[in-house]
């Protein structure tokens, strides 16, 4: 739903999303960096198992949750990218067995 208005400039870092290396601007938050790299599906919806992605970009909608360096359900719009960050999609079966 977000459209890029131009590539971010400045210093860059390399992050890994689902095994794929992405070179992104260092000043970006994870959500913005992934969106700019063409990633739109961040997680699986808990009820319909549909594709979900960032909505508010300001920390209130909890739709951009993602796994960062092994920590699940991180709010990607509130976390700045770091060199070497390993990011993976948040799938429902990962942590929500609830038992």
């Amino acid at each position, binding site marked *: 739903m977000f459209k890029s208005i131009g590539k971010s400039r400045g210093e860059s870092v390399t992050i890994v999303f689902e095994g794929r290396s992405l070179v992104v601007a260092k000043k970006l938050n994870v959500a913005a960096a992934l969106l700019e790299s063409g990633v739109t599906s961040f997680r699986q*919806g*808990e*009820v319909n198992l549909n594709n979900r992605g960032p909505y508010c970009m300001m920390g*209130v909608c*909890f739709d951009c*949750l993602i796994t960062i360096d092994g920590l699940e*359900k991180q709010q990607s719009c509130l976390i700045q990218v770091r060199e070497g960050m390993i990011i993976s999609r948040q799938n*429902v079966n990962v942590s*929500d067995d*609830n*038992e």
Partner: protein
Amino acid sequence: MHNFDSIVVGGGLIGSAVSYGLARLGQKVLMLDESDNSIRAARGNFGLIWVQGKGVNHSNYADWTRQSARQWSDFSKELSELTNIDLAFEQSGGFDFCLNEKELGKRKTMMEKMAVNSVGEFNFEMLNNSELKQIMPKIGPSVAGASFSQLDGHVNPLNLLKALHKGFIHLSGILTSSAVIGIQHHQGVFQVRTKNSNYTSDKVILAAGFSNKLLATKVGLQAPLHPQRGEILVSEKIPPFLIHPTGLVRQTKDGGVLLGDSHEDVGFDEGVNINEMQKIAKRAIQIFPFLQSVKMVRAWGSLRILTNDGLPLYDQSKTCPGAFALSSHSGVTLAPVHALDIAGRIAKNSGLPPIVECFNSDRFDV
């Protein structure tokens, strides 16, 4: 100067339901909603359609509540077809948990009384922990049991409000955001003043929450109301585990879990309190222990609009015929009777439905 059949003051769940109901019958209606700074109970509630426990000591209230719950299915269908808004309506029966044996015993007595008073119209079941476990496997071991009533249900309360507004506008109703600063009644015509406009009408329906207190006096009525705060916590979205609504925990169609409910006497403070939130969370974890590892993402406080006896206040003016004052803290449960029964009578100029005449303010005169 604009002239209307009815002016409804208040755009919350009661004002919107009545406005929708009047517009549905071809009445020319103006609904005056105030602003985002107003105290808006309709934006903060839990979303239950709740029958069990309501009107244990007042059979008219119990009957009225049941009458509404029975109309909910058709009402939901009508509203969502008209507006294309999914109300997330579900009415497969609700559970009210009892956390210990003593509570369970008391609940059973209360439900039996309701069933007797209803003359066969209200049925319930009592379940112990192992029976509950069949229905909701994640129930905690220390929950004694629960009462169950088939008529209970739930709905997305924000979508309900949105659908009532949208439906009302679709039916040619006019919705404006402005506070009422004066009402006069002269030769059978009401003049309602806002900051920028003057409107006239044959009827005025006050559904302005706590503002009814002041507005009612302008049309020869009184509305003794007080606030009671309830806090709600909401979790991150999790896979569906609870289809049925319960008095304390409700999973929405989107997967979020709402936890309630507190009853606090804190005046008009709509904030939250850490001790109350802790109590709510602890109780919820006793009911469903797995919730302890589920993230809470938001909490809010909202004010119930209450009378001293907890019953609704429906009144019609003797000195200014055509003026009504309506308030209740069950805007979701009672939406169908407000839209169909109350609006239906008001549209025909036949006063309030006989079953609710006992809910006038005379009962508070000592």
